[in-house]
């Protein structure tokens, strides 16, 4: 089996960041966390699904198959998360 780092140097333009990034970033985001777009962005250039199944446990791949949330919903979730961390005491 080819290694985990075999594609790390390949680059693509990340639509989220607006710059070129290596495959390494897509599969780690710096902390062993797969970008949820990794399949979408690489499926035509690499056997990325085979690669991921070979190197990651199923529970890590589950998130890649989940429904991307509408922006509004993800905003609400972020608001709720921030409130839980530090409940605001709004004047206005």
């Amino acid at each position, binding site marked *: 089996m080819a290694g985990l780092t075999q594609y790390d140097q390949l680059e693509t333009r990340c639509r*989220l960041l607006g710059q070129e990034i290596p495959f390494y970033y897509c599969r780690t985001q710096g902390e062993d966390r797969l970008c949820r777009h990794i399949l979408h962005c690489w499926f*035509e250039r690499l056997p990325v699904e085979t690669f991921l199944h070979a190197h990651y446990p199923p529970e890590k791949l589950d998130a890649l198959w989940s*429904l991307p949330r509408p922006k509004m*919903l993800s905003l609400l979730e972020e608001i709720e*998360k*921030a409130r839980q961390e530090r409940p605001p005491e*709004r004047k206005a």
Partner: protein
Amino acid sequence: MIKVLLSEDEIPRQWYNLAADLPSPLQPPLGPDGKPISPDMLAPVFPMNLIEQEVSRERWIDIPPEILEILYLWRPSPLYRATRLEKALGTPARIYYKNEGVSPAGSHKPNTAVAQAWYNKQFGIKRITTETGAGQWGSALAFACCLLDLECKVFMVRISYDQKPFRKMMMQTWGANCVPSPSPETRAGRDMLAKSPDTPGSLGIAISEAIEAAVSDTSGQTRYSLGSVLNHVLLHQTIIGLEAKKQLGKINEKKVDVVIGCAGGGSNFAGLAFPFVVDKINGAQIKVVAAEPTSCPTMTRGPFAYDFGDVAATTPLLPMHTLGHNFIPAPIHAGGLRYHGLAPLVSQSIVEGLVSPQAFDQLDCYAAAVLWARTEGFIPAPETSHAIAAVIEQAKQAKEEGKEKVILFNWSGHGLMDLLGYEKYFSGQLTNYVLPEGELQENLRVLQNLPKAPANKTGKW
């Protein structure tokens, strides 16, 4: 005639809201509890005047004169005719483009940044937070806040902060406080740094930080700003298409055959296209093309294109293991597919058939961008090059058909901050690694028999 200008007193005084005319209206998105999201739920991050625009179904919304006063710095933007490109292609088509690269930040983004900053200020907000990747949005908001005397805090993804320093410097020049994300300034950032001190960050973390910074300000004087996807953002961009209509009218160009924009989140595309989409709704024969890259396509193809029966994902979230049944395979062009990273109004326009998504290869896009620069002079942003590739394809088709087609597109921004991409193209580093068809089909095989949900559309287009 090379360019068509409007005077300041000819600038459109209202934005156009496509939500008023969509034949299959958008449903309000549902919250985590399955109930529609109410305006007050968004109040911690947006001022109410922008929330009202977000949910508005009014067709026309007045542009406050104070916003126009700022937009006059570069608006009305010129409409150009790309005569040199036409000649290079030998096409009978007439190619027009709106040059949005003339804004101070170099793209269309300030059209909404200025509006959002102004509405925040009207609401009594003193400070705006946001996230940015390579900095196009962050620099636009920094510019807008500067002119409106608002504090601007930008959480810039660390990998971009380190590798793309010029936009960061632009933000600083306009007085914004741009920090690398994750930062020690928020709980979300500190948690991430504790786990991984050298992390390059991600857009997700930067969003968490920007929202936390807004929500946790107990004075209530901080809000958050977003540069794409949302309805009010698209609304502010429609000034592009509305100006273009006036400019084409000035030169007696009565009918546009093709309207083209590149679509990521959808705001620059919508800005030019929506005022023409409504003409199509009312019977005009216009092809409206949303261009995107074949790498990471979100509208046109891919094993993970989504097509749910309800447009704005109004279905409550489903258990993760069942979600695979909503994915459909679409290895070739398939109009009607959509992706929830795209603006709901653009998504629904695609589902209705009012807009045709089309994907273009990275190398073709760079080749188009270089041809453009060598004929028309301006160096386009990589995203803009997708639209140019679409324009060239349409112009060549017009040549084959011998038709005097009128093509209009949005030149959404310059690429002067993206020259490293050009360098990689010229040095051959951007060679595609396209999978053999057999291997691609094998990757798709597992998905081939999954059911497709019914689409919410009238079937008129």
